[in-house]
Each structure stands twice: as C-alpha cells, then as structure tokens.
C-alpha cells in the first residue's frame, strides 16, 4: 500500500516522554554495561524465530528455486542451473516488464517528489487552518490500497468518470477516452494513483526538514536582495538536500515494490502495458504456476532494489551504536 517501505524512528516526541523522568541530565543512554548479554539474546529469540520462519527461510528458498525448473507439470523441482536466468535474457516479455518498471518507477518517483516538495513548501507558509490542512493531507497515505484503487478507477471510468467529464468540459479532449484500456492511459493511471498516495508521506519528510531551517539565514539573504526564487534555489533546496536524497531512495524502493494499487486498477493490463516486476512475479507464480521462473524474476527484482536499499540502510545505521 501504501507506504511500501518506510522506516520509522523513535515514535515518541522528546518533549512528551523521557525528559519528564526524574533522572540526571547526564544519564547514559547507550547499552547497559553489565554482562547480561545472554539475557539480551533470550529476549531476541522469539522475534528471531518468527523472522527466520516468515522472512529468512522463504527468501533463501526463493533464491534456491531460481535455479530449478518447478512448474505445474514438474511438481518436483529439477535443477537447471542458470537456465532460468538465460531464459529471462531472451524473453522479450520479461525484459519488457523491466522497461515498464523503469518507466513506472521513474515517473512516479519524479512526480511524487516534486509535488510532495511543493506541497511541503506551501504548507510551510503560515496561514489560517494550516494545521487542519496538514493532517487532512495525510489521508491518501492511510487509505487501504483497494480503496485507493477503487477511487481512482471511478475517476478514470471511461463513461461516467470525473476525468473524462472535466477534460471534455475544458476542451482538452474531443471524445471520452477509455483511459484504462490504452497502454499510455493505464500507465498514467497507475502513476497518478501512486503519486497521489505518496505525496502525504514525502510532504511529512520535507516539512520535518524545513522545520530545522535557519530563518535568520533566509532573512539575511532577503536583506541582500534575494528574491523567492533565489531563496528556494540557494537556501531551501540545499538545506533539504540530505532529506531529499533519503526521500528519493525511499520513493524508489517503494515504487519498485508497488503491487496492490496496480493489481486492483489494471491487473497489469491492457495486455502487458502495466505489468511491472511485482505483477510479473505474481502472475508467473500464482497464475501460470511457474514457480521457478517466478523466483528467478523475483531474484532479479531484488537486485534492482539492492542499490537504493544499501544506500538507505547505510544512512539508517549511521546513527545506531
């Protein structure tokens, strides 16, 4: 859904919690000194077991299966080495879904970052009712994915849809367009849907980044005669650079993983126009029951997620001791 991937850190405001405790301000906050390491390991075991069963084992098995032929007609997996990977390279349809994924991820990432940033800058200006607008802005992010898909499916509806009505009224189109039945229209629909549901989260990131902006620096620039554009370009954007980087990486990871809204809106169609990798893997596994090939495509899919994931984890662990 939503928020495909996001990491949350300390969910508690510093103001509301620990500073209220009667402890010295010099309190140490790292690990406990004593040698209770074994007790710590015991606390970890339940989570580790659960994790091993539902994440690690399935992942390793999927890796392994990518070297096997495993279909409905061969119910016992047969070792085929790298043959599945070879097949991927020669299968135009699968290569096509890599291209489709690149288009989807590129468009959705670019637009959600730009609009999220613009919306954050707008909501950073003081105006009456701003707090209410900020919290309402998060609605698209918390909607269940099927609800989001229904909502946009209704807007994109070829006969009674709001989009066709609006576009006709404004003279942008001459006749009703069956958006979800054309390749470009369906791609536009899934991108717009994803952008809509991503803006809130990114807006929240950027707003948090803007909150630490040094106002005096901007005032000084104003005195030197900087206009709005110069302030944006020379001060706001450079200040947001680190946040911007993390947000772009998160957006890419999330978009690479997106499945629910695409499946509910277009099912990967028309034909294969919106068959991104997540849909490709799902169809191969649960429609054609070609588990081996599904695993192979899935492993390559993971490979596309690895570079941004590596970057993000490195950032995340920087602060961890």
């Amino acid at each position: 859904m939503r928020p495909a991937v996001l990491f949350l850190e300390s969910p508690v405001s510093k103001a509301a919690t620990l500073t209220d405790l009667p402890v010295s301000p010099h309190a140490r906050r790292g690990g406990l000194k004593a040698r209770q390491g074994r007790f710590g390991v015991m606390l970890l075991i339940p989570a580790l077991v659960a994790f091993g069963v539902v994440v690690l084992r399935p992942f390793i098995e999927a890796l392994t299966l990518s070297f096997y032929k495993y279909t409905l007609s061969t119910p016992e997996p047969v070792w085929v080495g790298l043959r599945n990977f070879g097949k991927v390279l020669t299968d135009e349809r699968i290569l096509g879904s890599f291209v489709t994924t690149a288009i989807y991820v590129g468009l959705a990432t670019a637009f959600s970052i730009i609009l999220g940033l613009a919306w954050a800058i707008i909501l950073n200006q003081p105006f009456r009712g701003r707090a209410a607008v900020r919290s309402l802005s998060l609605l698209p992010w918390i909607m269940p994915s099927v609800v989001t898909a229904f909502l946009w499916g209704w807007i994109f509806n070829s006969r009674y849809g709001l989009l066709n009505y609006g576009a006709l009224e404004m003279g942008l189109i001459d006749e009703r367009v069956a958006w979800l039945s054309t390749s470009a229209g369906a791609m536009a629909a899934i991108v717009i849907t994803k952008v809509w549901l991503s803006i809130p989260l990114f807006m929240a990131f950027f707003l948090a980044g803007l909150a630490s902006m040094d106002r005096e620096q901007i005032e000084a620039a104003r005195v030197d005669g900087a206009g709005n554009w110069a302030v944006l370009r020379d001060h706001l954007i450079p200040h947001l650079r680190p946040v911007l980087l993390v947000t772009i990486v998160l957006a890419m990871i999330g978009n690479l993983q997106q499945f629910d809204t695409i499946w509910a809106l277009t099912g990967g169609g028309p034909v294969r126009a919106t068959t991104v990798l997540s849909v490709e893997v799902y169809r191969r596994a649960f429609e054609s029951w070609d588990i081996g090939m599904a695993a192979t495509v899935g492993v390559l899919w993971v490979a596309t997620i690895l570079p941004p994931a590596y970057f993000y984890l490195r950032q995340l662990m920087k602060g961890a001791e």
Partner: protein
Amino acid sequence: MLDLSTWQAKTVFTALAVLIGFFLFFPVYWLVISSVKPDHELYLLSPTIWPNEFTLKHFKTALFEGGLPLHLTNSLIVSLSSAAINATLAVYAGYSFAKYRYFGRKPVMLFMLSAQMFPFGLLLITIYPMFTDWGLLDSRFGLMVSYIVFALPVATYMLYSYFSQVPNELIEAARADGASDLRIFHTIVLPISVPPIVTVFLYSFMWSWNDLLYSLTLIVSDDKRTVGPGLLLNYLNESNADWGGAMAASLMAAAPVVIGFMALQRFFIQGVTAGAVK
C-alpha cells in the same frame, strides 16, 4: 519563508496551492459524495458535483446484503492479532538491541532491518507452498503469521530507537535493589513505554488491514477473506460494476485506520519523519 507581498508571488503561490490541494482532496470528496448518490445520479455523463439527491442505500446494501461485515470482522481479527504478535515480538527484540551488548548484535539488527526491503511478492512464492505443507493455507491464523513479514522489522527499529533513549541509571538503580532484568523490564520500562508501543501496534495494524497481496493469495474461501480482496472480488468484476456500493464499502473499510490514525497522529508523524530526517 517565501515572500508573498508582491501580487505575482501571491498568484503563483495560490495557483499552485489550489492545484495540488485539488489533486489531493477532491478525490476524497468524490469518494464520499459518490457513496451517497442514488444510482440514477451516479451514472450520468455529466456528473453532479453536489448531489441533487442523497441516499444511504449503498451503505445499507453493503452492510446487510453483501459479505462486507464478514470481511470486516475477519480483517479485524487478523489485524488485531497480528498487531499484537508483532508488537510483542518487537518490544523484546527492540529492548534487547537497545540495552544489551552481545556478539552478532549489529549484523542481526542490520539484517532484520533490511528485511523490509525484500519484495513481499517474492517471499510469497515460497510462503505459499510452505503454508500448504503446514496446513496454514486458507487459514486466518496463517495469514496473521504471514503479516509478521510486513511490520516486524520497522516495529523493532522503532522500539529500538525508543528504548535507546531510556536512561541506564533507571535500570541500574532497580538492579541495585536486587530486581531481575525481566522484572525491571516489565515493571519499570514497559509502563513508561506505552505510547511507542501503541504506535507500533497501530502501525502493524495498518499494514495488515490495508494488505491486498497476501490475503488475496493465502486465503481461498470467501468466508475467511479479509476486507481488501473482499472489496476487490465483490464490487468490481467482469459481470458487474457497482460503483456506488464500492464507494460506500470503501468508506467503511477505510474508517478504522483513518480513525486510529487521526487519534494517534502526533506520534505517527514524529515517528515517520524522524527516520528520514536526522
């Protein structure tokens, strides 16, 4: 931070604000308004922006004639239980990572974090046959277990960050009084950690509640279905498209997460942004 004293600046700013605001909010308005329009007003080539007639028919139909109440109940059972499982596991794991030092702690933590990046669809390929072997296919319990994939890594990280802030003096003082570590955790640390635990609970709940992929695949019979696939399979299929019903049912499906989120919003936003903004 922008200077809006000139009319040009004001115009550009207002125009952008209205455009983006329209894009974000109008669909939500449209969802609500379409759910209360009677069918004859829903299927118009020139739709009415404000309905001429209001009806609760779609809500009644969804509540009394379809599978929605059953699917909502299933979602509630599965999401509440999986949130409870996740929060419990994450509480102990997060505390362990934050307050104890042992061999392999950091690599294990890094690995658990990276799990959030594994595509859920890939894991599903092998979870499916595994569940078939274990008799967990088409079972609400199985679905509940599979949802650990979604939220456990992030939940653990959230609580890890929180527990790292808990001063050691607090724990060491109790230790000097002779309390055991487990007892200290349960009687001293947990009581002051209710807000982050509730947040983690809600976070896990939202993931399970909003899921489509796992529920669609791991649940086969309609009476065990959760609300995501329930909506998808019942309202829009080849044979009919009941948009009014779909909108009304959508609103009811969104209500629990929207209400929960609004109630805990403050914690949530801080949690969400702190990870990306340091």
